[in-house]
């Protein structure tokens, strides 16, 4: 109780200094949270990218339907494969006619069906790498019933590159930002606590135990951190409601930005941890 009173007293005696510090912790947590949300969204976006990759397997003209079915299930059992879809050449022609009709082509002049049976293979997104995909394609090409394999080629490379690059990029940037933010919070509490040095000296000389000396400061640090986090949260909510809100209606595309449900509740918690941690480090090992 006394510690809490001391902490509140200390905060209120120099309220503006403390409010400024809370605001700055709030601002920095807000930045961190925005960056994390951005990284998270990029991650989420890229995670879906490779699933859209498909490989077209063209079968030899002389492949029998049962052979084709066998091949289909063989491919399906591969680890890397998400789904397979057999397209007979009759169906392909049908599709094509429909397609070209719209596109102002007339294919009525075609004699014999010039198309091939194909298997449309869709690959799994998670856990697959460019290397794995290439190996899989080589394997397909080696199969007897397979005439040719068509796939993104350079595209596969660059999509995986983008995906992993963005992951590495996002995680590095995110971590560096997070470290910076942690440091700034620590620094804020540290500088704020500097003016307490004389006070701590007096406490010691009067015979206060370490616990007695520390507790008001830990409480003060925690309060500053929690308030900072809460300010950051309000800031984020205000921004996301008014700015993004407007953005969403004007540019519907942005409604695809996804903020994990109520995740911003984590800001006061982070503020608390950082404020308390900052206080602990700032006070350091008390020595008599």
């Amino acid at each position, binding site marked *: 109780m*006394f510690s809490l009173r001391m902490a509140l*007293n*200390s905060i209120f*005696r*120099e309220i503006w200094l403390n409010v400024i510090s809370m605001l700055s912790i709030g601002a920095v947590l807000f930045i961190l949270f925005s960056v994390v949300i951005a990284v998270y969204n990029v991650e989420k976006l890229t995670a879906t990218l490779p699933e859209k990759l498909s490989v077209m397997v063209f079968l030899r003209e002389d492949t029998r339907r049962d052979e084709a079915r066998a091949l289909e299930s063989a491919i399906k059992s591969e680890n890397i494969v998400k789904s397979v879809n057999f397209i007979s050449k009759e169906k392909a022609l049908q599709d094509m006619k429909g397609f070209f009709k719209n596109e102002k082509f007339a294919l009525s002049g075609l004699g014999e069906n010039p198309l091939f049976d194909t298997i449309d293979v869709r690959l799994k997104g998670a856990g697959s790498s460019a290397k794995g995909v290439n190996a899989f394609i080589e394997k397909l090409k080696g199969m007897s019933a397979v005439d040719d394999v068509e796939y993104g080629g350079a595209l596969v490379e660059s999509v995986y590159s983008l995906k992993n690059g963005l992951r590495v990029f996002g995680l590095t940037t995110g971590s560096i930002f997070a470290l910076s933010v942690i440091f700034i919070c620590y620094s804020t509490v540290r500088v704020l606590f500097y003016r307490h040095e004389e*006070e701590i*000296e*007096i*406490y*010691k*000389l*009067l*015979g*206060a*135990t*370490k616990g*007695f000396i520390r507790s008001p400061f830990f409480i003060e640090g925690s309060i500053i951190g929690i308030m900072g986090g809460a300010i950051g949260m309000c800031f984020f909510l205000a921004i996301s409601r008014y700015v993004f809100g407007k953005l969403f209606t004007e540019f519907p595309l942005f409604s695809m930005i996804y903020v994990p449900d109520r995740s911003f509740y984590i800001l006061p918690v982070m503020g608390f941890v950082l404020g308390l941690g900052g206080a602990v480090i700032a006070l350091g090992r008390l*020595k*008599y």
Partner: protein
Amino acid sequence: MIVLEGVSKRYENQDALKDVSLRIEKGEMAFVTGPSGAGKTTLFKLLYLAEAPDEGLISIAGFNTASLDDSTIPMLRRNIGVVFQDFKLLNNNTVFDNIALALRIRRVMEREIKEKVTAVLKLVGLRHKADAYPLTLSGGEQQRITIARAIVGEPTVMLADEPTGNLDIENEEGIMKIFKLINNKGTTILIASHNRRLFDNTGRRVFYLDGGQLVKAEVR
């Protein structure tokens, strides 16, 4: 109660104390005097463990100060009431809280704290200043608050460093009366002062420091 044996303390380019030996008995009230820079405050700092001696042995309230760990130091300090020459008041706390701190540190109940603090404030004549902040007090008022804080915890040893430097004769006499009262109740008291009025014709022992050396000890 207080024993020094061959104690020396040096700062970078200066001997603050040189081979000082003295002994103050339990329940005694004694004085330390000497010119400015003689080492009086340094002696006190050694006694309340703010500094460690470079040489010699110090024992206070039954503790050998050389062999104390971090858990016994605060305990020992709570047995010593110190009137600091530079007051060392918490400027962000009221007079009441400054004095109460000495009791809160001792985990005294809030109700008892209220009683005791009010009593010592009355004793030093500053009851009406309980809610004031130190920086709004006059020099002499601050000094009396410091004295009140030192005595409120009823320590077994009291060290008072120039306790009347900012006080007029009436207040000075009042404070000395309080010290005698406490001393009569059994507290060992050591007072450092230039003010001869405090110890002349008291029949108390006075130690003379000069340039860090104990040059004389006499009963006045």
